[in-house]
C-alpha cells in the first residue's frame, strides 16, 4: 500500500480580472487546508464565496494566483483522471452514447480493451445497462447525472470532486443519489470533496463541513460531523449541527 493521500492547500488565493471594469475579483484569499484520504469534506457557503473556484483549483482546471496546492507533496499542474470531478450539469457529450460517455476516459488513454468489463459492470451498478446505446438527450436529469458520476468514478479517482452534483435534481432523485454517492465513497474510501448550497446535504454526507464566506472568499470555520452512517436527518444531533452552521452563516435565530 502506498502512503495515505494528503491534499494540502497552502495560502492559496485566486483573483480574476473583471470583464467590465478595471478591477479584480478576489475569489479566494489565504486558503489553508489539509485533507486526508477517506474523508468526505462538504463545503458550504453563500454564492460568490469561491467554493466552486476552490474545487476547480484542486481539479487543476485553474491555476492559483498565489500559494500552492500539493498532493502528497507533488504540486498540481493540470487536470488528471485521478482527480475526478462531477459538475452541476452532467456535461455528458451529447454525440456519444451512454456507454461511450462512460468509457471516454479509457478511450482517451487508449486503455479501452482491458477495461471493457469495467464499463459494463458500472453500467450494471447504475442500473442503466438497458440505456447503454441511448444518447444523453434521451435521459432524465437523474439518469444523466448517474452516468456523469459513473464516467468519473470509473477512473477510480483518488480525489473525487463534486461541484453541486445534485443541485439540478428534484428532491427525491437527490436523496437517492446522495445514498448512491455515499455508498460508492464508503467502498472506495477515496478523498471526496463536495461543494453544495444545501446544508442538510452537507451534514448528511460529510465527515467534515467547511463553511466559507464571500468577498473575499475565505474559510470561516469547519465542523467535524461525528455521526454514524446512515444518518438520520431529523435526529437531534443533526438538527444541532444544522443550527451551528446556520449560525456561522448568519442565518441563525441568534442573529435577530
Amino acid at each position, binding site marked *: 500500500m502506498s502512503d495515505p493521500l494528503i491534499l494540502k492547500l497552502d495560502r492559496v488565493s485566486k483573483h480574476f480580472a473583471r470583464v467590465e471594469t478595471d478591477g479584480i475579483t478576489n475569489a479566494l484569499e489565504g486558503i489553508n487546508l489539509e485533507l486526508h484520504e477517506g474523508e468526505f469534506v462538504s463545503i458550504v457557503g453563500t454564492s460568490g464565496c469561491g467554493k466552486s473556484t476552490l474545487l476547480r483549483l484542486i481539479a487543476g482546471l485553474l491555476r492559483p494566483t498565489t500559494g500552492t496546492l500539493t498532493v502528497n507533496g507533488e504540486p498540481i499542474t493540470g487536470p488528471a483522471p485521478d482527480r475526478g*470531478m462531477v*459538475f452541476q450539469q452532467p*456535461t455528458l457529450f451529447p454525440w456519444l*452514447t451512454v456507454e461511450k460517455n462512460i468509457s471516454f476516459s479509457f*478511450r482517451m488513454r487508449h486503455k479501452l480493451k482491458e477495461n471493457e468489463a469495467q464499463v459494463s459492470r458500472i453500467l450494471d451498478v447504475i442500473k442503466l445497462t438497458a440505456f447503454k446505446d441511448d444518447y444523453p*438527450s434521451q435521459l432524465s436529469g437523474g439518469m444523466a447525472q448517474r452516468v456523469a458520476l459513473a464516467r*468519473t468514478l470509473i*477512473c477510480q479517482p483518488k480525489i473525487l470532486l463534486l461541484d453541486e452534483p445534485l443541485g439540478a435534481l428534484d428532491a427525491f432523485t437527490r436523496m437517492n443519489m446522495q445514498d448512491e454517492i455515499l455508498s460508492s465513497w464508503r467502498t472506495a474510501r477515496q478523498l471526496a470533496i463536495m461543494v453544495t448550497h444545501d446544508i442538510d446535504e452537507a451534514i448528511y454526507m460529510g465527515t467534515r463541513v467547511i463553511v466559507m464566506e464571500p468577498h473575499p472568499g475565505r474559510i470561516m470555520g469547519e465542523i467535524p460531523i461525528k455521526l454514524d452512517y446512515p444518518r438520520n436527518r431529523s435526529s437531534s444531533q443533526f438538527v444541532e449541527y444544522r443550527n451551528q452552521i446556520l449560525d456561522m452563516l448568519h442565518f441563525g435565530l441568534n442573529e435577530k
Partner: protein
Amino acid sequence: MGFRKENRRHRTASEEIDIPGTLTRQQLFALEQKDKTPARRAWDLCVTLFPAPACAAALLEYGYIPDKYSNAYPWRYVIFLLIPLAVYLCVWIVSRVRCAKGDRTLYEKLLYKAPLYTAIYLFLLLFDVLTLKTGKLMYPFIPWVNDIINAALGDWNMLLKSTLFSLRLLFLGYFWGVGVGLITGIACGYSSRIHYWISPLIKILGPIPVATWLPLIMLLFPSLFSGSVFIIALGTWFSVTIATITGISNIDRAYFDAARILGARERQLVLHVAIPHAMPNILQGMTQGMNSACIALMVAEMLGVEAGLGWYITWAKAWAMYNRMFAAIIVICIIFNGVTRMLDFIRRRALRWQIGVTRT
C-alpha cells in the same frame, strides 16, 4: 396477431391503451394514430392506386391523339411510362402483404406519395398534349419527352463522358474545398491568432460570387481544368470554413473541462470534443458548399472548360439540338439531386444523436 384483431374494430383510444405486456414500436404508432372510419380506409386504398389510371390516361392520350410531328421510336415513351408504374405496383403489393402482417409503415408511405405520382403522370399527359400533339408550348424550343429520350439514348456515349467529366471536376474541387475548409475552420476556431490572420481573407474573398474570379483564373492557371477545380474549391472552402468556425466557437467550455478531467490531451480535445460538437455546423456548411460547388461547376463549364455537362448544354444549344440540351439538363438534375441526397443521408447518420431518435 391478437393486437391486429383488436385494432380492426372501431375502438376508442382509451380502450386501446391498456394493451398488456410490451408494446412494439409498430403498435405504438398504430395506437397513437386516430382511428379511421371504414369509408376513409376504402378511400385511402383507392388513393394508393390512383397512379395506375393516371398512367393509363397518359398512355391513351399518347396512343390515340394523332402526332403533329414525326416521332421516332414511339415505344420508348410507353416503356418510360410503364416501368415506374410496374415498380410502384410491386411495392404496393409488398405493402399490402406487410399490412396483413400488421406493419403499415410502407403502406402509409405509399399513401403519402401516391397523389404526387398521380400528379406527375397527369403532368406528363398535359406536357405531351402541349408539345408532341399540338406544339403549343414554344415548339421547337421545348421538345416532347420521347424526343428527349431518343436524344439521350442516341447520344448516350457523349452524355456519359460529359457526366463523368463533370463529376470528376465537381468532386475534385469539392473535396479540396472541404478538406482545406475543415483545416482552416478548425485552426481558426481553435486559435485566436490564426483567426486574426485568416479572417480578413475570409471577409474579403467570401462574399464575392465565384464566377467573378473566372476571367482571372483563366489567366493564372496552367489549365482550365485546374482553374475550375480551384473555383469550385474556393466556394466550398468558404462555406465549410465559416460553418466550422461557428461550430467550434460555440462549444460550451464545460465540455472541454469535462474532457480534460477525464484525461483528454489537447490534440484529443480537438478530435473528440471540438469536431464532434461542430459536426452539425460542419455538415451544414458542406451542404451549402455543395450548392455553391454545383453553381461554380456549371459556370466554369459553360464559360470556359470544353467538356462536361455544362459545356454539352451550351454546345447543344448552339447547334439548336434542344432535345439533347434537355437530356443534359435532366441528367444534371438527377446528379445534383443524388449528391444532395447522399449528403443528407450522411448527415442523418452522423447526427443521429441530435435528432433524439426513440429507442426500438
